[in-house]
């Protein structure tokens, strides 16, 4: 059953050219019931990809399907199923939360006022204060509540946790985990805070310089990469393994990396040991500029 279900979000062959930057053949799939962390350095193409999914940026090429529906052809139907929070929240600063909610609810037949009330209370967001008077964290939480109010299946969040203090960040992550308790839903959130992605994401997609590097389940990703440490004093046959890359001599030995740890384990000889990488270390390893 689960396998035959169509992914919530399918992005394929997405391309967009700017004079100084291009998205090239961006492709990934987000199955229902999962949270995907979308990692990339500043300017790697995260926001452009998310805007292109929402058709806020016109793509040059590619295909985008949400619940099997095509964007932007079926835009109206799609947008009932999507909650999007961009890098600049679209809240009117002069309005109160109350007025904002009363305005927004008229656009969505599926508006869930009970959930809105619950979330406002849970997050302690005042309804009578002007948006401009809310703190940065409050504004982010207010935009999230708005994005979830029409009970979308898919949340697209551009850097929802950046610039927030640890307490608010944790609250936001909890809200996302709560959202996918209903397994027909899913979340795509971009971030450059790898620890947030490591905590709650089921899938990790890494974009670098407009190209998708990796899109895979977080557990298998962290499983197949390892730092391999080879002491220099003993035999060091393992250094010659074709499965190692970025191999460098250090004090007392060699340090290299493998992305096929299981195979390495089976084949490598001599003295060596392995260390698991955090998502942050892996991210830096993959997207750090290599000197050659």
């Amino acid at each position, binding site marked *: 059953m689960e396998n035959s279900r169509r992914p919530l979000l399918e992005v394929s062959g997405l391309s967009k050219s700017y004079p100084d930057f291009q998205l090239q053949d961006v492709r990934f799939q987000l199955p229902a019931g999962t949270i995907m962390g979308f990692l990339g350095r500043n300017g790697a193409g995260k926001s452009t990809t998310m805007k292109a999914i929402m058709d806020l940026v016109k793509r040059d090429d590619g295909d985008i399907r949400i619940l099997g529906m095509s964007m932007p052809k079926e835009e109206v139907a799609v947008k009932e199923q999507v909650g999007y929070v961009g890098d600049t929240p679209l809240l009117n600063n002069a309005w109160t939360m109350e007025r904002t909610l009363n305005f927004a609810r008229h656009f969505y037949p599926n508006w869930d006022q009970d959930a809105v009330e619950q979330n406002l209370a849970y997050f302690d967001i005042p309804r009578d204060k002007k948006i401009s008077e809310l703190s940065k964290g409050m504004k982010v939480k207010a935009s999230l509540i708005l994005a979830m109010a029409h009970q979308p299946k898919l949340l697209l969040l551009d850097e929802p946790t950046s610039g927030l203090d640890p307490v608010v960040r944790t609250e936001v992550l909890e809200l996302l*985990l*709560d959202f*996918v*308790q209903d*397994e027909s839903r899913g979340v795509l959130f971009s971030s450059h805070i790898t620890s947030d992605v490591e905590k*709650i*994401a089921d899938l990790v997609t890494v974009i670098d310089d407009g190209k998708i590097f990796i899109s895979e389940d*977080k557990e298998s990703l962290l499983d197949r990469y390892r730092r391999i440490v080879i002491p220099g004093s003993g035999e060091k046959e393992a250094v010659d393994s074709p499965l190692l890359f970025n191999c460098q001599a250090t004090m007392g030995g060699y340090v290299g990396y493998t992305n096929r740890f299981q195979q390495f384990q089976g084949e490598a000889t001599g003295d060596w040991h392995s260390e*698991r990488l955090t998502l942050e270390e892996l991210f830096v390893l993959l997207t750090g500029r290599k000197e050659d």
Partner: protein
Amino acid sequence: MLIHISQTSSTPMYEQVISEIQRLIAMGYMEADEMLPSIRELSKELMTSGITIRRAYQELERTGFIYTRKGKGSFVAALSMERLAQWKMEQVREPLLESVLQAKKLNLKEEQFQDLIKRMWQEVDEQNETGRTQEGKNNGKQ
């Protein structure tokens, strides 16, 4: 469920979840046929991704600690005393092996290593003793 995990530990999250649930089962805090939280529930409770909990549950099932009924959920398996004793030894074996390797690397003698274990065992016993009597005294004062 009383599960203690650390987001900053170098032990992978799924391994922490596995050993915590094994501990709860082995120490009798969870009984045979008791239902475990759903993957999504536990993921929210522990602030960790669903795929991490799924992996932990798969491993617990593979090692016979839990069983899963399709559409119903996961449950604690009935484990024999031998299996539990074996699991307890496994828990101690790994970290101890590290120490043995370290001791050999540093050219310690076998007797020195065994003495160390004996002494540590006694020390912990003594600490527990004094801890308990102090607790008793404090209780007495109140």
